[in-house]
């Protein structure tokens, strides 16, 4: 199927009333959770996973993608009005955005973030449409050995390259791999890592772990460091950007989009790096008469560029997820487990076997982007009001939903004990700066990597050298090694 046929089919499905409804609901929910500090898209999708038993796959994934994109839009509102970034991708937005807000220019900052997100989201979705099929062609050539090596590369990049420390990132990943091992081994039927507890034979539920880390751990950590007196929400003021604002914004939007998308596509995942790079680029490229605004009154370029980069990278993350079945962010990992609960295996075959689903999904991303820019510009007052939900009731509510999401899995108090135990681990992970996303990614990707490893070794009749003698696999492993050791060797050389 060509891209145009695919998009035609996709828009035909996405523009039905039911699917438009799912997209609108997703965008609305996504923006709300993006705005609310303490809840993100990964947690929301994890809590909504039971919907996969009720709704057909297309509707559910349109909802999830709406949440995914919506949270990116909503996150910037929090950064700008509260100076507390909702998620890692909006840390940079908070730098200049909050300064603009403090100088009474919150409106234009929000507008440039929303329009920039729209531009970047659209460019990113175009990227998915045209790059996806190409990656699939390439992915069909990969055997189990190459897949395993690709997953090793993915493990290294999500845990060791991003974030504060390779050691702590890898520890998080190993913790996730360990959790993924619990339960019955699918190939031989042997129980593993269960401590003889029958409840653990089914494995540890990924929803439980996501909720524990993102909701319980986070809330416990916030309580640990709680100080009375909340942060102040800055007033929005006039939302309309002036002509000068738009003139200063459009180039950063495009630059940010083009910078962000490739970062998302590469298995490096993460939105921190492209947003940071975009910020530095805009700081360098800004017109001299506005250069003094950076770091003082807040420069609009410093919001427009990183915010576009953030959204484009988020769109890019969907490419490896849809074409290779590789999740490189926590949200993508949770979406992957939604595919699994429909019995669909994401990977190169997805585009062939589930063509209507994939193209409807992609078309609905375009739709979601239009909906989001409409939802965000005129309704910005509503989102700003959501920010005023008082902290005590907000965090109490988050824990209520965490409990019901987990208790609903099997009505077992044992699950709740596990939820709070892993939540406590999550609290300490926050305190000691261990990233949480690699835990979820390792948990989902670990069993898939093991399966590929064992298949590859069955094909090679137990010859481990197969990973090094097959050129594709050897290249990927070499890349992983460079990604792991490169920065450290470089630091040594420079010293």
């Amino acid at each position, binding site marked *: 199927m060509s891209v145009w046929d695919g998009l035609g089919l996709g828009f035909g499905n996405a523009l039905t009333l039911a699917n438009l409804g799912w997209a609108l609901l997703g965008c609305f929910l996504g923006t709300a959770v993006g705005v609310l500090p303490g809840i993100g898209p990964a947690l929301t999708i994890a809590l909504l996973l039971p919907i996969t*038993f*009720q709704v057909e796959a297309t509707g559910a994934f349109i909802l999830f993608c709406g949440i995914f994109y919506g949270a990116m839009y909503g996150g910037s509102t929090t950064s700008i009005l509260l100076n507390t970034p909702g998620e890692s991708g909006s840390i940079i937005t908070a730098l200049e955005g909050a300064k603009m807000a403090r100088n009474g220019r919150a409106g234009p900052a929000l507008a440039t973030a929303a329009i920039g997100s729209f531009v970047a989201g659209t460019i990113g979705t175009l990227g998915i449409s045209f790059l996806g099929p190409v990656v699939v062609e390439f992915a069909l050539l990969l055997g189990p050995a190459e897949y395993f090596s690709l997953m090793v590369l993915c493990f290294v990049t999500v845990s060791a390259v991003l974030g504060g420390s390779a050691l*702590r990132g890898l520890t998080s990943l190993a913790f996730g791999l*360990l959790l993924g091992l619990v339960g019955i081994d699918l190939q*031989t039927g042997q129980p593993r*890592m269960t401590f003889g507890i029958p409840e653990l034979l089914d494995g540890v539920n990924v929803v439980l772990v996501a909720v524990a880390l993102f909701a319980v751990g986070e809330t416990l950590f916030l*309580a640990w460091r709680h100080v009375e007196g909340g942060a102040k929400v800055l007033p929005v003021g006039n939302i309309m950007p002036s002509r000068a604002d738009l003139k200063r914004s459009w180039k950063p939007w495009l630059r940010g989009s083009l910078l962000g998308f490739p970062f998302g596509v590469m298995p490096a995942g993460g939105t921190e790096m492209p947003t940071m790079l975009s910020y530095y680029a805009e700081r360098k490229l800004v017109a001299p008469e506005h250069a003094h605004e950076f770091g003082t009154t807040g420069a609009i370029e410093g919001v427009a560029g990183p915010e576009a980069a953030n959204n484009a990278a988020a769109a890019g993350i969907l490419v490896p997820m849809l074409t290779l079945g590789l999740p490189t962010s926590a949200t993508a990992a949770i979406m992957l487990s939604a595919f699994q609960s429909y019995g669909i295996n994401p990977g190169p075959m997805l585009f062939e076997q589930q063509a209507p689903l994939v193209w409807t999904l992609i078309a609905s991303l375009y739709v979601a982007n239009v909906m989001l820019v409409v939802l965000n510009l005129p309704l910005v007052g509503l989102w700003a009001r959501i920010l005023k939900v008082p902290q005590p009731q907000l*965090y109490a509510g988050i824990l209520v939903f965490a409990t*019901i999401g987990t208790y609903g899995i099997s009505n077992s108090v044992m699950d709740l004990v596990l939820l709070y135990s892993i939540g406590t681990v999550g609290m300490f992970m926050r305190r000691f700066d261990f990233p949480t996303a690699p835990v979820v990614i390792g948990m989902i990707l670990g069993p898939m990597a093991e399966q590929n490893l064992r298949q590859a*070794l069955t094909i090679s009749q137990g010859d481990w050298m197969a990973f090094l003698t097959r050129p594709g696999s050897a290249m990927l492993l070499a890349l992983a090694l460079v990604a792991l050791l490169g920065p450290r060797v470089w630091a040594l050389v420079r010293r």
Partner: protein
Amino acid sequence: MRPDRADLWVGLFVLGLGVLAGWQATEIPASPLYAQVGPHAVPYAVAALLALLGTCLVGVALLGGWSRTLEAEANAPATNWRALLLMVASIKANLALIGWLGFSAAASAQFVLVAAAFGSRRPWRDAGLALMLTLFAWFGFVQLLGVNIGAGLLEEVILRLFGMDVP
């Protein structure tokens, strides 16, 4: 530099997790099926990785630790024991109540305690809010998402009020 005690505990915890995983890996029964790679290989590898990373973390902690390099820790406020204790109480309350009173009652108790932990001074208003929210969540999950959560005391009363069947 002086070793960092807190960081040392973290390293030892990870090391302990590796040892625990290694022990569990030896407990995996031998597979009756023939396979090039049995069910043991990856568990051993993960256990070894955890032990190795734990050892490295212990090493870093002994050389001064990493917490002192964290920006967030440098300006962190002191531990809020009151809030933490209330959080623990909220968890205990939920675990103790959910079995015999059902979700809404247990989660409402949790809600009030968590809100108190974050500085709310109006427990009765919180309780009212909590009941609305938990019942809304219960009906949302059970009716809309089709999740099977047994009706507790409160849910039963409401279901009977509306003349619906109690599952």
